């Protein structure tokens, strides 16, 4: 068997193999080519920054009423975006609203992801009666219109911002379960799963260690889009009086409490709407771009 060593290509040194880019470098490279995703990311970054540093950058206390300055139009001195019907600074309220919306988006999607991934992976991997049971429950949940389902859950839990987040999270669970289950069904028959089983991987390791990472591309896209939708839903719930309660500077609530001024003081109604629009748009744009970035199979 001495001939074998000669037949192989020479080792290492002569071959000039360039260093592989790291995952992060590669991702940034991919991101740069996607203008829409960058725009989305910038918007998200702006809202996150504003939300985190709200107490530092807001010019006024969002709850402080200045009765003499009621319904001041934008660009009034000291009030860049004007004031609302009770004389509160619109800019400060929008800034604090960003903080609330970001928290709602992340927490609701976090709740939905946690349960969605757990149920979806187990259901898809094991199949059988558990899978059938889960799928029927999901079918029932999907039979309700999304908003109606959320309202029902809030109605049961009681109207508050925390309960709105829980309700939105639960309403979003079915889509993750379906998505994850479908991906797991496709992946679990792959050769690499058998190969990893053959080196002694347990069911738990196979489910969450090797199959789930291969399903993350569609999930991350869905999750990013989900944040946008959660922000929108919470605005809707607050608008209906089922989410944040006055005087919380929540965007949906701000629209609801000022809708009678739409003809006389348009900025009070319109600005929170525009803020919501941009936040949701940012997440949607970034979500789409993420699809191309996170999937190593689409690279090179």
């Amino acid at each position, binding site marked *: *068997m001495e*001939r*074998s*060593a000669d*037949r*192989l*290509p*020479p*080792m*290492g040194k002569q*071959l000039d*193999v*360039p*260093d*592989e880019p790291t995952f992060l470098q590669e991702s940034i490279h991919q991101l740069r080519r996607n203008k829409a995703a960058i725009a989305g990311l910038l918007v998200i970054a702006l809202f996150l920054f504003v939300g985190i540093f709200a107490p530092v950058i807001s010019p006024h206390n969002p709850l402080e009423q200045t009765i003499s300055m009621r319904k001041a139009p934008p660009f009034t001195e000291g009030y860049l975006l004007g004031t609302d019907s009770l004389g509160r600074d619109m800019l400060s309220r929008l800034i604090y609203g960003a903080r609330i919306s970001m928290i709602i988006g992340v927490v609701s999607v976090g709740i939905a992801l946690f349960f969605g991934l757990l149920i979806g992976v187990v259901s898809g991997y094991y199949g059988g009666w558990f899978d059938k049971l889960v799928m029927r429950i999901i079918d029932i949940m999907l039979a309700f219109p999304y908003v109606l389902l959320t309202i029902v859950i809030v109605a049961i839990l009681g109207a508050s911002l925390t309960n709105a987040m829980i309700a939105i999270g639960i309403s979003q669970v079915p889509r993750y379960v379906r998505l994850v289950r479908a991906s797991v069904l496709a992946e679990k028959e*792959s*050769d*690499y799963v*058998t*190969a*990893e*089983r*053959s*080196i*002694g*991987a*347990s069911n738990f*390791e196979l489910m969450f260690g*090797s199959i789930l*990472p*291969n399903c*993350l591309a569609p999930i991350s896209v869905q999750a990013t889009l989900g944040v946008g939708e959660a922000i929108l839903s919470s605005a809707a719930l607050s608008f209906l009086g089922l989410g944040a309660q006055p005087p919380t500077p929540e965007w949906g609530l701000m629209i609801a409490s000022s809708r009678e001024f739409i003809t006389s003081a348009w900025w009070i109604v319109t600005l929170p709407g525009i803020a919501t629009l941009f936040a949701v748009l940012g997440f949607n744009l970034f979500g789409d771009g993420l699809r191309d970035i996170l999937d*190593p*199979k689409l*690279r*090179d």
Partner: protein
Amino acid sequence: MDESTLLSIQNLEVNFYTQRGVVRAVRDISFDIKKGETLALVGESGCGKSVTAHSINQLIPMPPGKIDAGKIFFEGRDLLTLSEREIRKLRGQRISMIFQEPMTSLNPVFKVGDQIADVFLTHQNITKKEAWDRALKLLELVKIPAPESRIDSYPHQLSGGMRQRVMIAMALASPEPGLMIADEPTTALDVTIQAQILDLLADLKQEISMSVLLITHDMGVVAETADRVVVMYAGRKVEEANVNDIFEKPSHPYTLGLLNSLPSNEKYRGAKRLEAIDGTVPDLLTIGDWCPFENRCSFAIDECRNSFPEGTSIGEGHTTWCHRVEEVIKKRNNA
């Protein structure tokens, strides 16, 4: 069973209970693998060779598959009586596997270094750093060029031959490799890479003294690597012999047919047409208890349609299962 036997399969029966009926994939298969030996399981697609091999570490999908009878002794323990937990400990630790499709057998989202290191981490109590170092050593062992940078590669950045080397490295990632099951390790590779991989396997076998169960339909691969050969047809074992005897004294009509259809066979030196075995493999759903090769065999007589023959010993470690063994040997010697 004596000391030198590593694996002993005895009267294994595997059936698949499908909606169309019972597929009798493996019927009454027995063979031993000695320590340090390479045994080739030969036969065409669907003859049950993969199912036999996958039964050893119980990777066949159950259901619909079911091991209905038989014993599989590995180092004296019957694997079929072990719990899933104990089987899992053996997988990757004492019994490892390499697969036919190197392109899809690695997890696409992890670096190859992580995947090899993972095998160490699953079975041994060592740090990540140590596992990574050992993974690097293995990549050197399987002769991957520039292993320091390849260890950071994702599978899609490697060629098929490289990936198969990584798979082999994963199969070796244990402190005491005992049996390596190589399920058509070279089928998906081109011929030059095939030769490199086979040489590598042969080298490694010498270096770490493990046994290899080689599954293949390629008689060329058999000739190059195997010590002993078991020929399977439609779920049955039809001939077993040392590798030289299989090529020099084939004594079953099917083995003869397999060898006659090799392009490298000496009688094709002239411009003769390749011989093929007439007919097709019987449907395993409706197969009877008689000799499964009967419908394609030029030696077949009525007896062949009534019963599956007893084994006939025709030399040291050479057994064939054919009613017409004498006529087959006579014809072979005259040819």
